[in-house]
Every structure is written in structure tokens, then in C-alpha cells.
């Protein structure tokens, strides 16, 4: 099955095309304030580089965040409405899972991490490689970087954008050594994970698909961050 994958959670338009586990194209375009403006051009050129057009796409994968909510809404809306319009199935993929998937060969324990706005608040979750993909083995974490150590049940690799800086902070605050793999979420990672779900017949409802808001925790993370400033 030819699957198009999109992720717009990190101020980039990440677009990839896969056929099963085979990556046909994978590009990440800078998109600070113009994610929406460029998205169609980015999708077109990614497809073209694999010798494909939109008509060849049989399924669509969409990164659900967390990250920049404004960006994520562009990707989720484009992904689901394209699917609706073309009559194709859609599958949402948490961006943390896509990050973990890209690092699945680095370690038996992967802590995917995404910055939560300004300061050192992060979203994170722990994953383990399984069956050629990854499985989440912890609850979603939203809090400050040094608190991440509580999540780690063994030696793990930190994967995500800014992970090296986070690893440095962890070392500074707790003395723990942790390897970091810098990466932005990839469109092909999203497409691969979506493809697996779609092959199993597990699609999302095209109309109701929404970003992965980690709600209650989100506000608390910010409150904690600024409380520590006042202390």
C-alpha cells in the first residue's frame, strides 16, 4: 500500500511516501510561518520525486503532535480532508511514536521527547522496539526535563529535537549520563507507522481526527515552570 505521511508539529513540513516498509521519498521542509502556504507544493514535490501523483496514494498518515498547535492543526486538517476528498483511509500517529520509531535501532529503550513551548518543559514517553516498529510502555509525561529521569526504567536513548540539550541538563541536574539522538519527526516514519495500522484495517474516522492534546498536564507543566522561577 502506498502511504503518504505528514507531520507539521515542529515548524517544518515533514512529508514522506512509503510502500509497506520501503521508503520511496522523505523530505523535511523549513516552515516557520508558512507551513500552510507551502504544504501542497511540498506534498507535490515529495510525490514527484518518487514518480508518483496524489492519485497513486492509497492511504494517508498524519502526525498528531504534540508540538506547535498551530502547525499541527494545518497537518491534521490537510491530512484528513485530503483523505476525505480522495476517499482514502487515514491513520493518525502520535509524533512521539514517530520519533521513537526513527530511533528504534539505537537502543532497547527509547525516550522520545518534544519541547513544550518556551523553557524546559517537555512532552515525553518511553518506547520499546517491537515487531519492526515501537510500542509505548509508559504514560505520556509532561513536565520539566530533569523529572524525565523518573520515567526511565533502564538505560535509554533520548530521541527528539533538542535532545542533546536536554541530555546535558539531565547530566547537570542528576548526574545521569544519557545518550541523545537529535532528530526532527520524519514524514516517512509517520507513513510507515500509519501504513502498519492501515494494513491491519485500523483506520481513524476521517471526520473526527484531531491533534493529540495532552490537556490537563499541559497547563500544569507551564504553571510548574513558572512557579520554579518565582521560588
Amino acid at each position: 500500500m502506498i502511504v503518504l505521511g505528514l507531520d507539521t508539529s515542529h515548524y517544518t513540513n515533514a512529508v514522506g511516501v512509503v510502500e509497506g516498509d520501503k521508503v520511496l521519498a522523505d523530505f523535511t521542509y523549513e516552515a516557520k510561518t508558512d507551513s500552510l502556504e507551502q504544504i501542497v507544493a511540498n506534498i507535490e514535490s515529495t510525490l514527484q520525486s518518487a514518480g508518483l501523483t496524489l492519485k497513486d496514494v492509497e492511504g494517508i498518515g498524519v502526525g498528531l503532535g504534540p508540538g506547535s498547535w498551530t502547525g499541527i492543526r494545518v497537518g491534521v486538517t490537510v491530512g484528513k480532508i485530503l483523505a476525505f476528498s480522495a476517499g482514502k483511509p487515514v491513520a493518525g500517529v502520535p509524533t512521539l511514536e514517530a520519533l521513537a520509531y526513527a530511533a528504534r535501532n539505537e537502543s532497547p529503550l527509547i525516550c522520545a521527547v518534544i519541547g513544550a513551548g518556551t523553557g524546559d518543559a517537555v512532552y515525553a514517553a518511553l518506547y520499546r522496539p517491537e515487531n519492526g516498529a515501537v510500542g509505548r510502555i509508559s504514560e505520556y509525561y509532561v513536565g520539566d526535563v530533569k523529572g524525565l529521569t523518573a520515567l526511565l526504567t533502564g538505560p535509554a536513548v533520548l530521541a527528539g529535537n533538542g535532545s542533546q540539550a536536554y541530555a546535558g541538563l539531565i547530566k547537570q541536574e542528576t548526574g545521569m549520563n544519557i545518550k541523545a539522538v537529535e532528530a526532527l519527526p520524519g514524514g516517512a516514519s509517520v507513513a510507515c507507522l500509519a501504513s502498519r495500522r492501515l494494513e491491519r484495517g485500523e483506520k481513524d474516522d476521517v471526520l473526527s481526527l484531531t491533534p493529540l492534546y495532552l490537556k490537563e498536564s499541559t497547563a500544569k507543566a507551564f504553571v510548574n515552570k513558572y512557579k520554579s522561577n518565582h521560588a
Partner: protein
Amino acid sequence: MDRYEFFSNSPASTSALGKRTGERLAPGSIVALTGELGCGKTLLTRGICAGLGVPLRQVNSPTFVLVNEYRGRLPVFHMDLYRLGTESDVVELGITDYLSRAESGVMIIEWAEKIPSLLPDDLLKVEFEILSPRKRRIVFSTFGGRFAGLFEELRS
């Protein structure tokens, strides 16, 4: 903490204070306005925008649209939280996206008292108190040195 208290006798006085302030704001400034309905937040904002070179015709109340964006000598983001409920709502609205975009310009937030814990300490807080139909007590305060130049100029 730096603090400056101003007594305004008229809308024109509030406006003029705004203009002097706007002239001294650098990129990355966040101005948080708090005070009840009718105290002069939008009026002061118009003054600040005048000081930033924004054509005044562009500046009006963003109560319904939540954020207005203007262009002066710096980009200006004029936010009004009047209609919002909780801090969570504001976070999901994408305030952090706005905060990053506002690093290159100035952000002015009306009804900032709705989000006491979401903003950095080194912002410029402006608190209004209504003393009479035309008179206001306006208190500027900040932590850190970001607005030192402004405070110096206001006191002189």
C-alpha cells in the same frame, strides 16, 4: 523589582504615557495590562502603538478576534484575553506559538490577569486602578533589567 506610578487625569494623558512607552520598547517586549472594563487598557495600547509607529487606523479592540497583528517599526501583537476562560484554554489557543513569533516584536496583552502563571517575569506589567470617571492610577512594574531604559525615561 522596578516600579513606577503614574496618575492620569484624562484619556489624553493615558495616551501620551502610552506613546512615551512605545517609543522605548525593544524587540521581545511583552506588556501585560490588567484592570477592569473601561479603565483605559485599549487607550494605552493605542498610545503604545503610536509610539511604535503603527498607523492608528489599524489599531482597535481585538476582543472578538483575540489577537490583532500590526506593523510599526516592529511587528506588534495585540492580544485580548477578555473572552477566554481558563489558562488551559489559552495554552491550547497557541499562546506559546504567539510568544515565539513575538520575539522579533512587541506583544501587548489586555486582561493579562487571566494567565498569571503563563508569562515570564521580565515582562512589563501595567496595572490600572479607576479613581474617578476620568482619573486613573497606572502602575508599571517589572523584574530584571529589560525595561530599565524605559523606567529611567519615565522618571525623568
